[in-house]
């Protein structure tokens, strides 16, 4: 049985449904991210698990116990906030020991646990500092230690890195993940940064408008997005409108150019249907002897942009511009803008979704 369970959880604020029919099972020790655009209900869901909001309907269980109506202070759930929320009047050690003191642990046990947490977050020297004497990254590590010191059943993190600058964000997210693995704690991590979610999670819950769009491993979410929203939100995507030519053989037409797809979604469509077609930039490549198979497309080079390890080339196929990514290397022979070329992508790379193309 799963460790943390949300069943049919909904939250309504006066006249606005912030979270709708949320169902999720999290295993013990698992690291799950909530990913979605601003306002999609990530924080609200997390706050319901913490007990700061109470669900309009549905139940939340931890280790089999129904905690839906339990006060936040009775839940044994650790919380890390975007704004750190360290107690300014207490030293680092007092902050970390706060929850233990409430649990009436002996002074010795308390000191030992605080030292242990300080060494886990590599701030052994800072026990007697006040929060305002620490950098943002250090403060957030202390907040993490404070939440973990009480040995919570579940650790909740609400965009813990978004107030930090890019370099620290990268190193701290790796550190959070390492500590979570080391302690084997179940963690829910809210973020609107898809790269962060992909790199840190065991599983990702992609949300939109208060609903779950898809739950899956980063690999599944990125490579097999189930809805057009997920495909568009996670990673970069070329999306165009196309017309079904032959649903049995997976043939589509866009601006007079024919594409072939292997996707099941095509079954049951009739010729002439309008459909959304999506292809990731990295699935395109220039045609060579080896890969000349499906979808060989004539194009004109429109623009070339260096993105560090990746070079993004904009190619115009018929009247439509597609992004194409290739790995950078010093021996790469780049085409010139305005050159005519041929690019290709496999039929598995052509994803189709129902509905009209929006962009």
């Amino acid at each position, binding site marked *: 049985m799963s460790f943390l369970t949300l069943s049919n959880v909904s939250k309504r604020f006066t006249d606005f449904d912030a979270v709708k029919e949320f169902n999720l099972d999290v295993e013990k020790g698992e690291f799950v991210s909530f990913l979605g655009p601003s306002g999609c209900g990530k924080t609200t869901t997390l706050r319901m698990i913490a007990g700061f909001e109470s669900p309009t309907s549905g139940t939340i269980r931890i280790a089999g116990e129904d905690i839906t109506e339990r006060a936040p202070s009775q839940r044994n759930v650790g919380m890390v906030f975007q704004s750190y929320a360290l107690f300014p009047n207490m030293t680092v050690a007092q902050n970390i020991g706060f929850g233990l003191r409430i649990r009436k642990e002996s002074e010795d046990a308390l000191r030992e646990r605080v030292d242990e947490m300080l060494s886990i977050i590599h701030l052994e020297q800072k026990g007697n500092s006040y929060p305002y004497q620490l950098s943002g990254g250090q403060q957030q590590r202390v907040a993490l230690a404070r939440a973990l010191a009480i040995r919570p059943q579940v650790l909740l993190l609400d965009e813990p890195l978004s*107030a930090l600058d890019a370099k620290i964000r990268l190193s701290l997210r790796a550190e959070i993940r390492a500590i979570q693995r080391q302690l084997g704690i179940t963690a829910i991590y809210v973020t609107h940064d898809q790269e962060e979610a992909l790199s840190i999670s065991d599983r990702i819950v992609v949300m939109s408008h208060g609903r779950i769009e898809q739950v899956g491993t980063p690999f599944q979410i990125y490579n097999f997005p189930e809805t057009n929203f997920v495909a568009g939100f996670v990673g970069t995507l070329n999306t165009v409108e196309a017309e079904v030519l032959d649903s049995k053989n997976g043939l589509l037409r866009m601006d007079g150019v024919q594409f072939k797809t292997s996707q099941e979604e095509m079954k049951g469509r009739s010729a002439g249907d309008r459909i959304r077609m999506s292809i990731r930039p990295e699935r395109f490549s220039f045609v060579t002897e080896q890969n000349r198979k499906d979808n060989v497309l004539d194009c004109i080079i429109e623009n070339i942009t260096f993105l560090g390890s990746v070079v993004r080339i904009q190619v115009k196929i018929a009247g439509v511009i597609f992004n194409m990514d290739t790995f950078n290397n010093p021996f790469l022979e780049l085409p010139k803008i305005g050159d005519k070329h041929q690019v290709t992508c496999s039929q598995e790379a052509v994803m189709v979704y129902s509905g009209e193309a929006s962009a």
Partner: protein
Amino acid sequence: MSVASRIRKFPFWSWLWFILGALYFILPLYATLDFSLRMERGAIGFKAYREAFADLEFLETFGYSTLLAVMTIIVSVTLIVPTAYWIRLRLPEARRLVEFITLLPFVVPAIILVFGLIRVYSSPLEIPFTEIQIGTPLTMLNIGRFHLGTNILIVAGYVVLALPYMYRSVDTGMRTVDVRTLTEAAQSLGASWYTIIVKVILPNVRSALLSGALLTFAIVVGEVVLASFLGIPAFGPYLFLLGQHRAYEPSALTFTTFLITWAAMGIIQLVTGGQGQTAGAH
């Protein structure tokens, strides 16, 4: 930072405006001090201070006003801290309304407040829309020679007058430390309401409370209108009266009150030194 680098950082114009501003405040104060020291013809001395402090009535009225100020501070703190906290925590949508209410004492002159207070409290408690009356009028509530009713009345009036200052200090203090998130952090660590308020909230709004208390003190000790109309022997009316009969002593007392206020500010600085830093990114 060294003096040299300071000067380089603040160019000529900044200094000019700073000095002009400072003069605007310091000159009248200096004039008061200078005047208060010239009671004896042709000599600089503290005669005015000696005479002013020797007056028993000064000590009585100042002591009484101090007591009123302390009572006012206690009442307004117990009233405002929980209110401001609850609004930050659970009723953010009520903040505009409460802010507007706390501004009313600026809009309604004190003189109107006086007549309102007297009108309401000098009649017996009436049950609305009936002829039934219960209790004695508040103004007639006395214990021996001690006018309890009037004292309650004046403290109530002072709480209203001090409301804008107290509420704003407390509310700003609560915003800078983000009491709502601190409360949630403490709750998730298992803290009870008592622990949250005593260990987390109060220590972090302490400097805001102190500055609100200081402002309240200054207002109450210098207040004239309410005290005169309720006919109580407070420091404000005393100073006012003294000013009509004497020349030098009021200046001496005015300067003294300034010193007391500054001393209080200094104490606050000392007590809160190093505290009151906001949580958040640096």
